[in-house]
């Protein structure tokens, strides 16, 4: 069996508090194979987003990784020099945030933001970068791409902004995309379009996806495997059908029972 693309081993993250440190992620281990989608589910405060930030070394103090390894393409990201880490971050692993309005720069044209993501990593001139940006906007199905690049984020709808975010994430052809609640802020019809788009791009670029969400509907639509987090620990992990239909851990069972429309026994379908 080939080595996994991402191999998180015994990751522990602590936030230093006033009185005592709080363990946000506790001895977490999981793997993602190339081209695979792992759904990381849990409720607020379970440590999902902290995990994503730790993998990319974007964690801000008082948060700090106290132990563990994050092996990506054979290297431990946690011990890379910052200069080498910058070549991984955004290029080999990229991140899609929940809130495209706050993640995009409001005073910069979206074309410049996409071009910036390209030129930070590749030595290309602005014209070539803008041409590539047009390709990317075409890939995320934004019509009239060349004109849209001149828009500012506030001129775009929520769904379009999320498409721009995805275009930026894909700019350097990453192997792994971490999507942190990518559709949570969107209406259900727009969410469906963005999920369809992610599925299409995942197949086209052979992307591995770490999909962080609290929505089991999104999990059922997208994930190959599921890891369930609770209070910073992994409580259950397995293939999506097994987790949705025959969860073993008591917390997973409780969580699924709370999902509206999830029938007992887990047949799930409503039509």
């Amino acid at each position, binding site marked *: 069996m080939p080595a996994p693309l991402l191999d998180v081993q015994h990751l522990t993250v602590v936030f230093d508090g006033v009185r005592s440190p709080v363990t946000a992620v506790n001895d977490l281990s999981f793997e993602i194979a190339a081209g695979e989608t792992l759904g990381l589910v849990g409720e607020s405060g379970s440590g999902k987003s902290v995990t994503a930030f730790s993998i990319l070394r974007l964690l801000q103090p008082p948060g700090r990784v106290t132990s563990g390894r994050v092996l990506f393409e054979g290297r431990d990201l946690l011990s890379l020099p910052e200069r080498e880490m910058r070549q991984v971050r955004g290029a080999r692993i990229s991140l899609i945030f929940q809130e495209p309005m706050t993640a995009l720069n409001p005073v910069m044209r979206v074309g410049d933001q996409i071009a910036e993501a390209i030129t930070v990593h590749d030595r290309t001139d602005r014209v070539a970068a803008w041409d590539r940006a047009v390709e990317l906007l075409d890939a995320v199905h934004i019509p009239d791409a060349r004109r849209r690049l001149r828009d500012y984020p506030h001129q775009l709808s929520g769904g379009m902004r999320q498409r721009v975010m995805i275009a930026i994430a894909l700019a350097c052809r990453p192997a792994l995309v971490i999507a942190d609640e990518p559709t949570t802020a969107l209406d259900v019809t*727009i969410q*469906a379009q963005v999920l369809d788009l992610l599925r299409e791009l995942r197949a086209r670029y052979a992307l591995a996806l770490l999909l962080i969400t*609290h929505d089991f509907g999104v999990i*059922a639509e997208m994930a190959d495997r599921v890891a369930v987090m609770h209070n910073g620990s992994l409580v259950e992990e397995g293939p999506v059908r097994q987790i949705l239909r025959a969860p073993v851990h008591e917390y997973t069972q409780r969580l699924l029972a*709370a*999902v*509206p429309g999830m029938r007992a026994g887990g047949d799930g379908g*409503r*039509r």
Partner: protein
Amino acid sequence: MALLQVRNLVKHFVRRHGLWRPPSVVKAVDDVSFSIEEGEMFGLVGESGSGKSTTGRCILRLIEPTSGDVFFRGENVLQFSRARMRQARRDMQIVFQDPYSSLNPRMRAGDIVEEPLIIHKLGSKAQRRARVAELFTLVGLDENHLMRFPHEFSGGQRQRIGIARALALSPAIVIADEAVSALDVSIQAQVVRLMLELKDRLKLTYLFIAHDLRLVENICDRVAVMYLGKIVEMGNTHSLFSSPRHPYTRALLSAVPVLDPDAPRGRIALDPTSFDARAPLKEIGASHWAAV
């Protein structure tokens, strides 16, 4: 007679674009009619900007509607004087989405729940205190929570305070405006269970405004679907969800993620040219209306 009857409700917002350009009109609520029977859980669903929250607020006159009628127990609340309206609100309460911004951060939980009783000059201080304690127990909060401030509570507990405040005056109808949307799924289930319990116990009627279609399907008796300020379809929950007729309802329902990884995914895209946006609602089956 229906407990609440909304007839031809209209709310237009006028947007001004500066001195030289003519103002434009946003038809947030555009000729909406429905009625809610006593003891019913009536769901109003739609995507952002569909006008569902504006409809809820117009009913309570938190926003003054442009035109239309809102009958509560047969009386038109839109013609009430300010004083009479204030009185009417004893029977019509609202629970908001965001328990962080809808509770005064400088007031203690007990005072927040007591405030409506003071405003409506009900009971002596001792009686009010007893009522607040009773309400706390009713919504599953502890009496030693009375002296705490909102920031000391979790999201689910805060929403319970919001519900306790709404119930303080023993209303007949509660408008729940995305009341559980911001909560985690397990907390959401608890708060929904509480709302259903209180409905039976206090014979409450709910207008449940939400965008979560799976939740609405599970708890509401009847549902109305709003799109661009209009109700495009309305009916018994089962009938509407099992055989949606309006193209928008069909597109909306097909977009809801199915919880079975092996279920066929028949996404229906909305073609705005496939229907007449001005078509009136007509009865297409037993208590099932659609604007087709």
